[in-house]
């Protein structure tokens, strides 16, 4: 389905791979903002590390011409999301207002079908009840629910911030400004490798950056129409 413009917003993230240093600031920021529980050492070993945003590191070449490439991966908020239609209870659906994938925790029955069908493997399952040693729970963001065991969760583009920002603009009777709404990861990113905005707002930074020639989408051949655009990393050669 081609991208059909509606009255909503097309929230879009741009990931500049040239700038991503893999420093994990976004990862921790996301844990803090979205009450993502920490997986213990054993859980990590069992392959259950849960981060809504993870920085994949790929090696290229061999010593001494070896390169490490960082690829931050989080829910791509696909336009044609493979995770959505497979959910038998509509726990995963597409918001026509924000044009992001919504995961409804209290509707989710935990079939994990969406998790299988996500080619990016960005959907996480709550295998256990999330644990926060007292008094760490004091930190929990009251805008975000702590997920119960048995439900799927994933990056929401910090929907709570989007809603707060939109309501604020509504109250003040003004249009949303670009940069007013920033998810926690993009806000933390020291090198500005993550840029967030409404692609349908022509004046937004993302709308201007998307046509970049460095731009590509992750697993574009699958036709999932992600709302996350990556900008290829470059390389400056000595003597240029």
């Amino acid at each position, binding site marked *: 389905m081609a991208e059909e413009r509606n009255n909503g917003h097309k929230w879009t993230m741009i990931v500049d791979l*040239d*700038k991503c*240093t*893999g*420093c*994990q*600031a976004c*990862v*921790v*920021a996301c*844990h*803090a*903002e979205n009450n993502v529980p*920490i*997986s*213990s*050492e054993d859980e*990590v*070993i069992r392959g259950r*590390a849960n*981060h809504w945003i*993870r*920085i*994949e*590191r790929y*090696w*290229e070449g*061999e*010593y*001494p011409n070896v*390169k*490490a*490439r*960082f690829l931050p991966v989080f829910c791509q908020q696909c336009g044609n999301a493979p995770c959505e239609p497979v959910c038998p209870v509509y726990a995963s659906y597409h918001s026509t207002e924000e044009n992001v994938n919504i995961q409804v925790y209290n509707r989710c029955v935990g079939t994990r079908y969406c998790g299988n069908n996500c080619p990016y493997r960005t959907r996480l399952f709550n295998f256990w009840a999330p644990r926060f*040693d007292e008094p*760490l729970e*004091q*930190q929990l*963001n*009251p805008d975000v629910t702590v997920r119960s065991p048995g439900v799927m969760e994933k990056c929401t583009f910090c929907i709570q911030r989007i809603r707060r*920002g939109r309501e*604020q603009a509504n*109250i*003040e009777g003004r249009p949303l400004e670009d*940069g*007013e709404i920033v998810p926690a990861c993009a*806000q*933390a990113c*020291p*090198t*500005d490798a993550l840029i967030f905005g409404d692609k349908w707002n022509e004046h937004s930074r993302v709308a201007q950056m998307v046509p970049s020639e460095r731009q590509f989408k992750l697993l574009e051949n699958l036709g999932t129409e992600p709302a996350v655009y*990556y900008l*290829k990393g*470059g*390389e*400056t*050669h*000595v*003597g*240029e």
Partner: protein
Amino acid sequence: MIHFTRREFLKVSAAGTATAILAGCAQETERWVALEPYVRAPEEQLAGVPNWYASTCRMCPAGCGIIVRVMNGRAVKIEGNPEHPINRGKLCARGQSGLQLLYNPDRVTGAVRQEERGSRKFEPLAWNEAINTLYEKLDAAGDAVALWAGSTTSGHLYDLFARYAGAVGASAPLRHDLTSALNGVGTLTAANDALFGRSALPSYALAQADVIFSFGADFLGAWLSATGFGVEFGQFRSQPFGKRGLLVQFEPKMSITGAKADRWVPVQPGAEALVAAALLRIIADEGFGGPARAELAATLAGDVDLDAAAVTCDLALADLVALARAFAEAECPVAIPGGALAGASNGVAAVTAVQALNALAGAAGGAGGLGFMPAVPATLVAPPASSYADAQALIARMNAGEIKLLLVHGANPVYDLPPGSGIADALAKVGTIISFNPLVDETSALADYILPDRTYLEGWGYEVVQPGFQGLPVINSQQPVVGPFYDVRPTGDVLLTAARGIPAAAPALPWTDEVAFIKEQITALPKGASGGDDDEVRWARFLQHGGWWPEAAPESAAPELTAQGPVAAAPAAFEGDEGQYPYYLHLYPSVLLGDGRGASLPWLQGAPDPLTTVAWQTWVEINPATAQALGVDHGDMVHVESPHGAVEAPVYVFPAIRPDTVAIPLGQGHSDLGRYARERGSHALHLVGVTLDDAGANLAWSSVRVKITRLDKKQALARLESTIDPGEDIHVPF
């Protein structure tokens, strides 16, 4: 309802139209110590409406500005302060995790006395009793008191301690911890002194640079001010006109800075000085970058064996020449020395050699990436960092029984110093040890009393930031964003109260509480960017905006080269016989855990290391070829032994490390520091001896060789990445 977004708040308040009103009532300005009952809510404390407070991050010494989101009296999120000149609205993983220090389950909840040192059996102590004890001990100790502070001890506290020490005739507080050693603070300062006559930390304007040569400095990871450098790096990579900048990283083991470099040069440990000198030599010989630069290079370059230099970094000489040319012909080149380089036995020489490259930039009249912060026009100065030699001197005094009372704040010497320093034995000879640390760390476990200070989110303070960015001198503000979570008292108040009874100290410390002291210091500052004509307004603005800094960067000239003659290019010496100990040991601070103080925070423990994606563990990085020779693979336990000690850790086969080098991250291996850190991984500092560098002042922590023995054990690595080899067919999907 009018709620501004945070951004809007800042804009509005900066424009001077904030919701500030004149209240002619004097009672409003008094210090309000008691908790406000909720029937009379403090301003803005509405349910569901967040409140933001600007303050300072103290998870590392960089001094980033933060704003904390507070809801219903709970700090729920730390974000970067968009106005702050250092981090400019950004914040690293460690900064984000400060909340878990505030709400750490293992915090000491009040003043305690330890039954027996090391017993870890604590009995609660009423605060008046605790303060009385401090008073008695101070009184009894007289000038035989020593203060051991860390690099994140608040500036005001250091100043108060220093005033107290000065008043009673004790030696100045020692400010030394592993962070300062790893950052190479002493080495950098010494090198700058030697080259430019400036005994200060350098600041590098990377945003304007077009070529960066970094020698071992992981400035994007855990070096000095990673967030500030990160912001600058982002700008470096997105300069106008399609210029992307060239970053060359010289280091034996790839750091995340190396990963982002356009060229990663695996230089042999200890040979950095040689390479830097060789670059100078080539520039001078070839006349790269114009006569001014070449001439200057000629004065700095010594006699260097260029072929040997090329060999040490696995490069062809032509490549080295090309690199030298790229550096010399750049408009604004920067060379950054740091990391293991600063911990080498020729540390000062090596740092000087690299720093000398920066002198070239200035010579051509270019902007130059290297700079020094102009001094704050007031009495406030950054507290000096103590060298390892200072620490050794204090240890010697302890051993001699000259210290009756040791006060520890913000430092953890038992963990931070190699065991060879004898710190543990020395502590046993100290009459009384009082720790002010919020968690029971290795040093607090040996203390007699713990009078926990408030964490930085509950307490007051200021800090003179070093190094700065954008040429702006910055003094950070630190204010409580929430009420104290436990019955803990600010160490400043405790000290002021106790000192009141000590005749020698009382006149030097006349303030009723620390806030009065801070306010006095701050209101003495000239008008800064946030304005305010009146003391009260300036004070409020200082807190509101997260600190003081001038409106525009003061004029500052490019640093002038004062040194004469060629830089030394001698290679570093390593302990341990090459035959017996075949591998160089490369220690590095973990990007997440820093020097180890992050180990108590589950967010940092649980976040994967960027390059290995291992969480919760310590590992040994070994080149695939070396691993094959040793017959080890991922997760095999190995015994790493140096002439000074040994640790055990699982292997991570790391493709981006020299085959003659093994690397171990620092940060784990705590015997205390709460449930998340205890008995987890190993502490590679145990491999390090206590040799000093060429300046005779700093610990040469990167100057040992090790041998590796395979153990018949396995420890599954907690890797986020797949443990499956994808094989040849699978390509990186981008």
